């Protein structure tokens, strides 16, 4: 008997959808043909498994929703019961701020921020950056001097105000209602921001929150043409990742989405910045703001910059910063109350090609002028 016909018959039989005459015939066949009998038993077992799978999956889904709600409320709190360690954290936060200041000064000069478009880099020229790198390497004590110098340097001398697209970077959805994450250095260069998905649809967006310390910004798509997406396939990781963890990135160093892969090489970023990771991966201007995704489909970081001198040394803001940003955003205005990042990934156990297929439609090109 044809496999397809057989499972159709078995299913109707098990569901009690067979007319009684056919049922008699079928039961007769079952008695005579052990193969048919075996098929019935096997299929019943299989359907039972599928049903259990379904109920467990829906329960897990409900469980995650409740958990997310309680996380948002702050009822489930990562620092609960950690009084001893909290001190260290507070001390570290203070210290971190100092580092961040130093890092942002140093970063300005020794790093080539990736979000800049080709046209921009051409105008300013990499040479200037290279010279400045040389200067800061002389001594760290000169940071202050360099800082005053930096004020005199025309950062963006040719910033054209023409209504053309001058900058290109990457961003990705963290809430299907139209909220994306990208870098603060991307949005700070743009007066008008647009995001474009892989289908080529443009949407107007605005920066609703920026944090220059961690170099992250949250964009909101303001275009009414944008249709909310109910389920993002990836999640945003709350914890930190381990050394050697492998990941892939998606971004727009060209006008087309580009895939890359690499590994996590240090748990801190440039100059010991604890809010970011050092990665080994290839990244180019335009990759800024792109997601760094591990094999479980969790976003572990956001590409922010690369070392202009060392090849393949790239820095990414840690994903947990996104949650801090969102918390502040929610407090800032009641209309952002419902904005939340996905904490449940559908990409586990999928092969890479499938993962990329699922993720790429939620990675946007961020362009503007």
């Amino acid at each position, binding site marked *: 008997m044809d496999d397809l016909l057989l499972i159709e018959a078995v299913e109707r039989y098990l569901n009690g959808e067979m007319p009684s005459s056919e049922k008699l015939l079928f039961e007769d066949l079952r008695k005579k043909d052990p193969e048919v009998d075996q098929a019935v038993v096997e299929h019943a077992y*299989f*359907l039972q498994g599928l049903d*259990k*799978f379904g109920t*467990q999956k829906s329960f897990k889904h409900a469980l995650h929703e*409740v958990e997310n709600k309680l996380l948002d409320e702050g009822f489930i709190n990562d620092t609960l019961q950690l009084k001893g360690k909290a001190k260290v954290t507070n001390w570290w936060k203070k210290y971190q701020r100092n580092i961040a200041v130093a890092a942002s000064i140093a970063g300005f000069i020794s790093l080539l921020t990736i979000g800049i478009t080709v046209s921009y880099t051409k105008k300013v020229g990499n040479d200037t950056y290279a010279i400045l790198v040389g200067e800061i390497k002389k001594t760290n004590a000169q940071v202050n001097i360099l800082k005053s110098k930096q004020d005199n340097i025309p950062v963006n001398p040719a910033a054209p105000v023409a209504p053309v697209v001058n900058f290109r970077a990457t961003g990705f959805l963290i809430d299907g209602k139209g909220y994306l994450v990208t870098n603060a250095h991307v949005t700070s260069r743009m007066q008008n921001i647009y995001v474009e998905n892989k289908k080529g649809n443009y949407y107007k967006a605005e920066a609703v929150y920026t944090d220059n310390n961690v170099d992250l910004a949250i964009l909101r798509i303001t275009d009414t043409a944008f249709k909310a997406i109910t389920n993002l396939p990836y999640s945003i990781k709350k914890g930190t990742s381990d050394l050697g963890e492998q990941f892939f990135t998606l971004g727009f160093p060209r006008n087309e989405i580009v895939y890359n892969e690499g590994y996590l090489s240090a748990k801190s970023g440039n100059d010991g910045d604890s809010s970011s990771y050092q990665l080994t991966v290839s990244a180019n201007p335009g990759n800024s703001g792109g997601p760094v995704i591990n094999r479980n489909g969790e976003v572990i970081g956001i590409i922010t910059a690369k070392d202009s001198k060392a090849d393949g040394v790239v820095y990414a803001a840690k994903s947990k910063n996104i949650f801090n940003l969102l918390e502040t955003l929610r407090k800032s205005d009641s209309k952002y109350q419902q904005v939340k990042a996905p904490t449940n990934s559908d990409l586990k*156990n999928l092969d890479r090609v499938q993962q990329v297929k699922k993720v790429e439609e939620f990675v946007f090109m961020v362009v503007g002028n």
Partner: protein
Amino acid sequence: MNTTEQEQELLKGLAQNDKNAIEVIYRENYGAIQSFVINNNGSADEARDIFQEAMIVLYEKSKLPKFSLSCQIKTYLYSICRRLWLKRLQQLSKYSTQVESLEETIPVEEEIEDHEKRNEDFILMENAMAKIGEPCKSLLDAYYIQKKSMQDIAADFGYTNADNAKTQKYKCLLRLKKLFFAQYKNV
């Protein structure tokens, strides 16, 4: 503390996937579990994992036809979590010191074993589902998991009629079945 009736109501709600019941159980029990895990070499993330697993164990139990809980939900969850956490510590060979525990516990070995068996089945099905590809995955998901009607599915997926969708569904099911049973042969 809940009365026996309140506890029964909660468990009934849990068996039906009721989010309110899940939330009440979370609120009343999560804190104790998190303290236990963190005080015993774990992190908040790990506490969340363990608690979720224990909730699944309780859910499966609450769905049994002749179900009754011989103790309070609190004691049950705590016992499950404690057992699961000890197991995990052993696997990570972090298990060195005596695990702190002041709460009362009940024996839950059997439950944990059943749970692990179910977990394996779940993973086998999940793997098979992951390999089957689109549109099969969505189609089977819509019919067997979301329990949509064939008419709705035909409309959603753009099949000309329910019969076409049905044929397609059977083809997909056959593929899934082959993938599912192929894993048994490999074990």
